[in-house]
């Protein structure tokens, strides 16, 4: 365990006086940054900052080189055959919008896009945009345990399914989905297979060729890198055939008044001045994660979630419910819970008893505010997965999510505080 205490020391945010006691349990939203990443960005700003792919002077050539080296580094991190298959974008959201816009052009009324009920809004809304053209979005259901319902998946995979887009790890349930199997089924069905890797790439070894996906999207800020840098990996021939997304500088070869031609992949998709410092910072984050080893990262988070589920049973807090698979093997470092559930309101049967309907529930807002007073940062809300909340019969949950700077101490602190909150809210009832 000492190893992880030491790793925490690499993150300056935990050194500052006011964050001395901070227990940061919101890495599924965004991760903290190690010194090495901060330094890499600063180094670029202080020594080589200039625009890439443009200047014919050495400063710009070095900047271009650094930017392209970052691409190579990220490419090998995810097992991509070539760096040309790595497009730098803003984040997962932008990558998925790019796919819906470009791949969506080839879809016609009656075609289907298959996603799941556990998707983040960024893997739902861009596909819903296609509905106005008569394209249908279907949602794979989950089992009672919170796993993807594979029978439902194969039922909903129809001859009209042109695209299957699935998250590898649920940001609310933590569920790890069998993307390799789903990819095979999608391909056998003649569908394009997209993986939302926002919650997997930061936390486990993800190899695009092993999965066999056509596209993978993920965000730098959730994996120790800067915000504003994200990645779309794609199969070479598909990227080449696709229409560009944004138009502008960099993405063109020629522009004339009679039309334009496109640059090669990946620059075809990188219109405008890119987030150079972001790419360079992400590359440093990848180096840092590689040094630790992604299998190590995964083992550590498995230990934390295992310990969480164990403490949940030991503390046995009244009315505490949690969601997602109980087996740490099938689950990332995400723990969503409620202290008594608040279901969505049915406006017809509202307040039937004409009295307060709080019962013994502590609203997730109150849970996270109270935890915040003890310097424990968790997120409360729908976690950008409203359909999943609805499926679970709740409007919101609180969520603790782990990363490499968390330790078993943090888990203990979480449960100690939850026990206190239970007492405060029970007091005087």
């Amino acid at each position, binding site marked *: 365990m000492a190893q992880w205490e030491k790793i925490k020391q690499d993150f300056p945010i935990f050194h500052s006086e006011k964050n001395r006691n901070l227990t940061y349990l919101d890495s599924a939203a965004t991760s903290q940054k190690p010194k090495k990443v901060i330094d890499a960005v600063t180094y670029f700003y202080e020594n080589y900052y200039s625009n890439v792919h443009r200047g014919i002077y050495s400063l710009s050539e070095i900047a271009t080189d650094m930017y392209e080296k970052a691409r190579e580094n990220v490419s090998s991190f995810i097992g991509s055959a070539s760096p040309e298959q790595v497009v730098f974008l803003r984040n997962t959201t932008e990558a998925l919008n790019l796919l819906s816009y470009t791949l969506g052009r080839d879809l016609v009324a009656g075609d289907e896009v298959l996603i799941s009920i556990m998707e983040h809004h960024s893997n739902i809304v861009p596909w819903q945009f296609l509905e106005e053209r008569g394209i249908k979005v279907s949602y794979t259901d989950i089992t009672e345990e919170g796993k993807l319902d594979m029978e439902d998946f194969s039922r909903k995979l129809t001859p009209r399914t042109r695209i299957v887009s699935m998250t590898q790890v649920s940001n609310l349930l933590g569920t790890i989905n069998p993307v390799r199997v789903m990819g095979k089924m999608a391909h056998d069905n003649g569908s394009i297979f997209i993986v939302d890797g926002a919650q997997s790439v930061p936390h486990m070894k993800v190899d695009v060729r092993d999965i066999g996906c056509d596209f993978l999207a993920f965000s730098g800020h959730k994996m120790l890198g800067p915000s504003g840098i994200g990645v779309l990996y794609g199969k070479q021939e598909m990227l080449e055939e696709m229409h560009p997304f944004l138009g502008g500088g960099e993405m063109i070869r020629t522009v004339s008044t009679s039309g334009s031609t496109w640059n090669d992949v990946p620059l075809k998709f990188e219109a405008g001045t890119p987030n150079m410092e972001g790419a360079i910072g992400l590359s440093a984050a990848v180096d840092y994660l590689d040094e630790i080893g992604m299998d190590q990262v995964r083992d550590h988070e498995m230990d934390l979630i295992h310990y969480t589920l164990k403490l949940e049973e030991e503390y046995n807090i009244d009315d505490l419910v949690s969601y997602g698979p109980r087996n740490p093997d099938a689950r990332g470092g995400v723990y969503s819970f409620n202290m008594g559930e608040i279901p969505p309101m049915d406006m017809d049967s509202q307040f039937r008893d004409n009295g*307060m309907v709080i019962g013994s529930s502590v609203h997730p807002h109150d849970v996270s505010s109270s935890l915040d007073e003890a310097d424990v940062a968790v997120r409360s809300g729908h976690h950008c997965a409203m359909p999943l909340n609805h499926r679970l019969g709740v409007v919101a949950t609180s969520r603790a999510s782990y990363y490499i700077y968390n330790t078993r101490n943090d888990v203990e602190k979480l449960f100690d505080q939850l026990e206190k909150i239970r007492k405060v809210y029970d007091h*005087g009832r």
Partner: protein
Amino acid sequence: MDDEEQMEFIMEHYRHPHNSGVVENPTDEITEYNPVCGDAVKVSMLIKDNRVQDIRFVGRGCSISQASASILTDEARGKNIEELKKITEKEHLDSIGIKLGPSREKCALLSFNALKKILVKYGGE
């Protein structure tokens, strides 16, 4: 009052809300619901001779949203329409007394917004 005392004041309103229930034969009734967090309040009110004769609420949700409704209904009881219209957002937030971030302010304003919607009928904004 310091923060802790103020928080206890809120918790007291939350655990034992004032004016809970539904007014019989109300002149006005409205439900406000925030689907994002599930907070809900139903405010019912009896206005006679231009004055709040009775005001009650039922609801569910976080401590701030429910305590806020309890405090607001206390404040509104007995006031005349003109006085009600004069209660500002800021005054209401001040009466909660603890510092709220932007997301929790929404909780505190749920009942306030319900009241303001009722007042539209009486020429409020």
